């Protein structure tokens, strides 16, 4: 296909791209005028939820039609299509036609349908109610300021009526209007309406939700959608459209305490600017601020903006830069507050979470937690209860099978590797909610529940879950960050008993589960620290002594140290035990009879020893003193390598718990 140059009053080049720029080119530009459009109302996102077949599509189609939000010709087109198919026209088809146009071949996700009333513009968010519902609703409802919840007047409150309300409350959608739909099928009866209002109100109350209105509607006929219906003379409240226009833009975060979240620090032109956003409250130049976690304080020298009207304060939703009067170390994730209304700080907190990932969430699983601009390694310490979102009752689940499955909601205790600054749900929404990641994509999210946390600037609160080190970095602080104690797992046994195989597998598994772990073996010591040592009896003893000291240092640094030495002499092993605190030296006897080891002989050492090429070879020409009381014995002639590692992990599990550590 060839394209002709369009006839146009605009100049087009004869040879494309070859035109030399004219000197003195001036683009179109007007002076800034900040009075422009300041009166425009914000677009409001409204999510529509409800049990399947309670009339969502009909309601949306009707709203689009009644408010004149449809493109010209759309309704005629749908009417014509219906006539051709000999079908009765339905308003739901309008939505279907619109979606068809939007979707083309794209699988339905959250859909935004633009729509407007005389007052302002809206986006109706429709999250289809199939298996991906929760995931879609999270994306959709999390950006919604308000919700319409539909209930069929005949069917009444159904499972999803409860489930959706529960999710709305969890996602923080506080503005809610309940539409009791299909009133035509209930003969527009007031009694039926009142009964649903009473039943549903009491359920919503348990969730802390209080609907602005209950409205009797028949979306199919337009009753009480955009205009008041003569068929419900007993109803005096607003129509659905009036209720929409009554919703406010957002929570009034300006009346809440100040929360300025630091996104980044820009070090340009010899200045340090703390870039971030006011989530709540108001920040003024000259304000004294405290940064959580940690509690460093300074004063705001200037609120920095570019090409904007000069203002000495900033409010919720504003992204600004701050310069401070003091040189203090502040980084991304810090939250600036006023001194009298500080944030909470803790490494452990209670939360209500939802889980959207296929794989189950289990205690101890390594997670990443993001709360505003803070990011921390985290784990679930315990699952208090899994909540059935329809009954709000607890799902019975045996303790050894504690987990949260996909689409479930649970109350849990979470622990992070570093202190977090936060608020609790119901107080300041943006800083009380977080996302959880088990991999790359979000796996769930939640809100922090109230408890006796340490609060910056306040007396009281429990600081025991906060491991600040103002002075020296203590072992307790390191261990708190790691989430496990530092200790030494000392594998001893004959050459060929399986120490290295077990040690490597153990290191890999502990590392994969998020632990700080390091393996010390002959190879990484002999080449460096012990390079000068030979294989005389004295040198072999010194080799073990140094291995023990190295292991102790690493354990004090918070590592789980695994060693794999034959270490044949009880006295040498006991010396290592003696330099570590009780409970931090775990002797594991990797035991296989000499005959078995000889048969395995992975490095051909037994053969060489028998030929006399290696002197003082343990088990052949030198004794092996088996541990009298090892913490664990692994009979590797009876266990496979995998079984031995599993048994060792099982044995280690309680020792890796901080709370069960005898030293704490």
């Amino acid at each position, binding site marked *: *296909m*060839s*394209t002709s*140059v*369009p006839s*146009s*009053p*605009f100049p*087009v*080049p004869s040879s*494309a*791209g070859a*035109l030399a*720029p004219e000197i003195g*080119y001036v*683009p*179109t*530009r*007007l002076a*800034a*005028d900040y009075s422009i*459009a*300041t*009166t*425009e109302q*914000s*677009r409001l996102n409204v999510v529509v939820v409800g049990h399947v077949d309670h009339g969502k599509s009909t309601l949306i189609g009707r709203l689009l039609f009644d408010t004149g939000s449809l*493109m010209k010709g759309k309704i005629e087109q749908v009417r014509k299509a219906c006539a051709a198919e000999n079908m009765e026209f339905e308003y739901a088809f309008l939505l279907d036609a619109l979606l068809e146009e939007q*979707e*083309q*071949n*794209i*699988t339905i*996700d959250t859909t935004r349908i*633009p729509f407007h009333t005389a007052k302002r513009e809206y986006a109706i968010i429709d999250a289809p109610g199939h298996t991906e519902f929760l*995931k*879609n609703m*999270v*994306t959709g409802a999390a950006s919604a300021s308000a919700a319409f919840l539909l209930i069929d007047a005949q069917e009444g409150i159904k499972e999803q009526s409860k489930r959706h309300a529960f999710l709305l409350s969890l996602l923080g959608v506080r503005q809610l209007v309940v539409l009791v739909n299909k009133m035509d099928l209930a003969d527009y009866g007031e009694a039926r309406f009142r009964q649903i209002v009473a039943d549903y109100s009491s359920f919503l109350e348990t969730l802390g939700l209080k609907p602005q209105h209950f409205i009797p509607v028949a979306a199919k006929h337009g009753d009480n959608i955009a205009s008041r219906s003569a068929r419900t003379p007993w109803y005096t409240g607003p129509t659905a459209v009036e209720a929409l226009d009554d919703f406010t833009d957002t929570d009034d975060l300006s009346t809440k305490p100040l929360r300025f979240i630091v*996104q980044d620090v*820009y070090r*340009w032109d010899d200045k340090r*600017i703390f*870039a971030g*956003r006011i989530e709540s409250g108001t920040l003024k130049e000259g304000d004294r601020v405290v940064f959580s976690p940690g509690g460093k304080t300074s004063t705001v020298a200037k609120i*920095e903006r*570019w*090409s*904007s009207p000069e203002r000495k304060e900033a409010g*919720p*939703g504003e*992204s600004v*830069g701050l310069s401070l009067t003091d040189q203090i170390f502040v980084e991304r994730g810090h939250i600036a507050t006023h001194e009298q209304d500080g944030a909470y700080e803790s490494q452990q907190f209670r939360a209500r979470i939802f889980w959207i990932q296929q794989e189950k969430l289990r205690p101890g699983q390594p997670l990443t937690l*993001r709360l*505003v601009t803070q990011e921390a390694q985290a784990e679930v310490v315990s699952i208090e209860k899994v909540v059935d979102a329809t009954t709000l009752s607890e799902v019975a689940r045996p303790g050894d099978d504690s987990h949260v499955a996909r689409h479930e909601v649970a109350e849990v205790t979470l622990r992070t590797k570093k202190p977090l600054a936060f608020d609790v749900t119901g107080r300041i929404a943006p800083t009380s909610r977080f*996302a959880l990641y088990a991999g*790359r*994509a*979000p796996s769930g*999210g939640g809100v922090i529940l109230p408890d006796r946390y340490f609060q910056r600037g306040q007396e009281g609160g429990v600081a025991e879950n906060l491991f600040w080190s103002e002075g020296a970095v203590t072992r307790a602080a390191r261990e708190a960050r790691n989430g496990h104690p530092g200790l030494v797992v000392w594998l001893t046994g004959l050459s060929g008993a399986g120490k290295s195989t077990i040690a490597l597998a153990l290191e890999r598994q502990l590392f994969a589960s998020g632990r700080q772990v390091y393996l010390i073996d002959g190879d990484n010591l002999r080449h460096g620290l012990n390079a000068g040592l030979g294989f005389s009896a004295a040198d072999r003893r010194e080799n073990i002594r140094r291995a023990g000291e190295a292991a102790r240092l690493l354990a004090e640094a918070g590592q789980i140290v695994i060693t794999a030495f034959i270490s044949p002499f009880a006295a040498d092993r006991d010396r290592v035990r003696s330099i570590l605190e009780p409970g931090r030296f775990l002797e594991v006897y990797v035991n296989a009879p000499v005959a078995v080891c000889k048969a395995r002989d992975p490095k051909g050492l037994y053969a060489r020893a028998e030929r006399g090429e290696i002197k003082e070879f343990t088990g052949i020409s030198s004794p092996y003193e088996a541990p009298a009381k090892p913490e664990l014995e692994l009979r590797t002639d009876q266990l496979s390598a995998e079984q031995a590692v599993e048994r060792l992990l099982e044995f280690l599990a309680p020792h890796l718990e901080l709370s069960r550590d005898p030293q704490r």
Partner: protein
Amino acid sequence: MDHLTKLEQQSIFIFREAYHSFDSIVMPWSMGKDSNVLIWLAKKAFLGRVPFPLLHIDTTYEFPEMYQFREWATKFHNVDVKVAINQDARRRGIGYETHDPVTVTHELKTLALQQALAEGKWQALITGIRRDEDPTRAKERYFSPRNKDNEWNYKDQPPEFWNQFATHVGPGENVRVQPILDWTELDIWLYIRREGIPIPSLYFAREGKRYRSLGCWPITHPVESRASTIDEIIEELRTTRTSERAGRAQDHAERNAMQKLRAKGFF
């Protein structure tokens, strides 16, 4: 906070999240209105500078004024502009004179972009995509990951909530960051008017026609309009109901054209 300021402030937040999250960023710059709003927002976010390069995918079929604008705006904004042309395709004689628009757009825009991305190895691209532009864009996210072949897996997008974004990039992958996703065409014009953002003059009506969207000159047609000032354009948009990309031939050459282009990596 008024509507425009709210959009602006969220866009600044997105810019700053992107700048923190990625080691290397590039911002494609078509020099059209949305593109110029992006530069402006970047300067707001980074207090007067654009701390990453701009990338102009030069199809060699730009309107002459656009080349002038490029030179002028590069100096005015003090930006580092990289220009990428699919030289190989031009050598092979790919052009509107001889080929259909879908082929030419694919070669001179999509492939040119892919070549530039392969060379630049940027982790993130900041784009001017808006949800209201085209139906297929309704499902976009602020942070939209693309795989090694620049493909968009729209069927399984990570949920995006509470301002937590998909910031992970694997080797060879990139993330499309879309700071003006929630803006409409009208919002863009109101913002240009409010802030005094420089734009090319092709948008304004001459002899009853104006360009509403700017692409390659052989396939971009002016629409009927008397709007010769920004205020008149704003007034026109408040009353009009025709699609913004109505003048872009590549969208209409075949059914589902946008979908095909997007799946291949066009934006």
